[in-house]
């Protein structure tokens, strides 16, 4: 097996506020192989966006990486621990946008309203590839054509408000990919788009990945999108990874009660006629400033045993078929998966 591109070990990113400390990421680990697509799934506030920002070292204040390791394998095979870099330093800036790039959720607000599309994309080319502005413009048009942007030579001189949401997200993708990164991180890239546009953008990302062989770290709360896009899934809850595994295993045989609850909160066709009700995950996210002993999911878990579950925090442990689970009772629960085809 090849060496991993990115390895996160026991990452802890905390927000120190006057009201207390929020452990946004609290001991999360994951591995991304070269060319692999990994999905990170969880409710809002589970720390998935903060984790992506920790990787690029752009965690907004007052967030701080408190511990752990983020190992990036560089082009030459050397391994760099990103947590050890100065977040304003030259080295991490050379990685941002060049080796690891990122696309964001809101294609409108993620682009500057007062600069042209071409200016904003070309800037990365000037910065990382050392192109002259005129060369960068030609490259930018090529990058836009590459993401199937219609009339790329005209769009390049337009402002974000002059084009549609889907086109803006195409421009964002062109910007992220123009320097041929080896890892693309996507933070809910299709959440703000309507369904047909979403499908186009996802298809585009798959095609680009096949062409370039880059790895994708795909953050979403939409399990349907995960099934379409990823091979490997990481489920996060309250800053921790609670279950990881190949996408089929996660869908067909979830081991963690939280994963199970997430899967069964997706509406299915015919469900209403069959009389089955849509189940939501019971309870809400607990107070982020409090941390109780035991399993973080115990207060919302239907399988809470009242003993080990509330006294002892479970560790992430392998349970076969390439899966790892953070649950004391994973093997005994026999949770039901969802039927249906999961595209490989």
């Amino acid at each position: 097996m090849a060496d991993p591109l990115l390895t996160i070990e026991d990452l802890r990113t905390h927000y120190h506020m006057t009201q207390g400390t929020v452990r946004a990421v609290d001991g999360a680990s994951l591995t991304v192989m070269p060319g692999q697509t990994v999905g990170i799934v969880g409710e809002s506030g589970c720390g998935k966006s903060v984790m992506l920002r920790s990787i690029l070292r752009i965690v907004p204040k007052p967030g701080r990486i408190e511990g752990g390791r983020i190992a990036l394998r560089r082009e030459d095979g050397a391994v760099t621990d990103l947590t050890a870099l100065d977040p304003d330093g030259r080295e991490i800036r050379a990685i941002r946008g060049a080796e690891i790039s990122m696309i964001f959720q809101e294609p409108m607000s993620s682009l500057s309203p007062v600069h042209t599309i071409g200016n904003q994309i070309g800037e990365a080319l000037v910065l990382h590839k050392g192109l002259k502005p005129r060369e960068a413009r030609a490259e930018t048009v090529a990058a836009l054509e590459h993401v199937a942007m219609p009339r790329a030579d005209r769009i390049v001189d337009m402002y974000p408000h002059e084009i549609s949401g889907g086109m803006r997200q195409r421009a964002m993708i062109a910007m992220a990919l123009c320097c041929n990164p080896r890892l693309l991180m996507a933070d809910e890239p299709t959440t703000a788009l309507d369904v047909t546009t979403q499908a186009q953008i996802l298809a585009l990302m798959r095609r680009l990945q096949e062409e370039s062989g880059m790895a994708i770290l795909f953050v979403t709360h939409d399990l349907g999108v995960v099934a379409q896009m990823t091979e490997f899934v990481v489920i996060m809850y309250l800053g921790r990874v609670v279950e990881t595994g190949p996408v089929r295993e996660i869908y067909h045989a979830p081991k963690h009660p939280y994963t199970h609850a997430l899967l069964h909160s997706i509406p299915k066709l015919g469900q209403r006629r069959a009389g089955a009700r849509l189940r939501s995950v019971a309870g809400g996210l607990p107070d982020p400033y409090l941390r109780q002993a035991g399993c973080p999911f115990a207060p919302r878990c239907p399988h809470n045993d009242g003993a080990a579950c509330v006294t002892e925090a479970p560790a992430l442990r392998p349970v076969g078929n390439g899966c790892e689970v953070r649950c004391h009772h994973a093997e005994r629960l026999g949770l039901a998966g969802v039927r249906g085809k999961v595209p490989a």
Partner: protein
Amino acid sequence: MGSYLVRRSLQMVVIVVIISMVAFFVIQLPPGDFVTSYVSSIAGGDRITQDAVLALRQQFGLDQPMIVQYWRWITNILQGNFGLSFQHQRTVGDLLAERLPLTLAITIPTTIFVYAVAIPIGIYSAVRQYSVGDYLFTFVGFIGLAIPNFLLGIVLIYVSTRYFGGNVGGLFSPEFENAPWSFARVMDVSRNMGLAILIIGTSGTAATMRVMRGMLLDELSQAYVETARAKGLSEWRLILKYPVRVAVSPVLSTVGFTLPAMISGTEITATVLNLPTTGPLLLNAVRSQDMFLAASIILILSILTVIGTFLSDLLLVWADPRIKV
């Protein structure tokens, strides 16, 4: 763009005409006219006969209906004749020719000073929010806002005469007052002007600095700033290129309003500092109901306001591509 310019220019002409009417009529709203205030000011001992008063009125044309007076005034102005200042017994054109260039010579550098100082400080304060420097500038800013400029002028005059034996106030030191223009005189004027600019510009600088800080703080947390950061730009470069660019345009758009404010809003400071600008001239003209002088200054101020607003709008259109013309 072309049709926009034409449309706006026509609008400007209409607005200036309306303002000229309002200015002319408002000046005459207080009871009495120049003759009554003139009579009461010289009537200390001698009694002035009713006939003399009527003769004066007739001489100045004050016995005519207001609409006739306005028509005479405005048609004369269109021919370049601003009328006569009763008080100074000189033509208004003369007085303005004397004062306006000096006023602009102070106003324009003051405006530049305000923005050149306030914008960088505002940027620093926002980017380093809650740092020692930010607190310091915030403190200085509030003091600058709270102290009226004329008070600052008085304090400065006191300090410099008491401790430095220097001369503050006026644009010319006594020894250069009537001297011909020379290098030494230019140096003297620039030194005095520097002080005047500092004093007149203080509150404007403090206010602009706070506005810039607030606007930029709003922009710094926007998603496009994060995009730029994720692209690998260095922090200062991305801040200056993206959020500052967005935050600065509304700040710059206020430049149009500073133009008239600097000219009319500084009467008291200019009086205290004994500056030969239009501010004190307007103040005196209004007090003594010297109507042609007052109305002319107000007319010029309003023309400047209208032009300033127009320039601000053009600046905004240029700075923000989202604004359609």
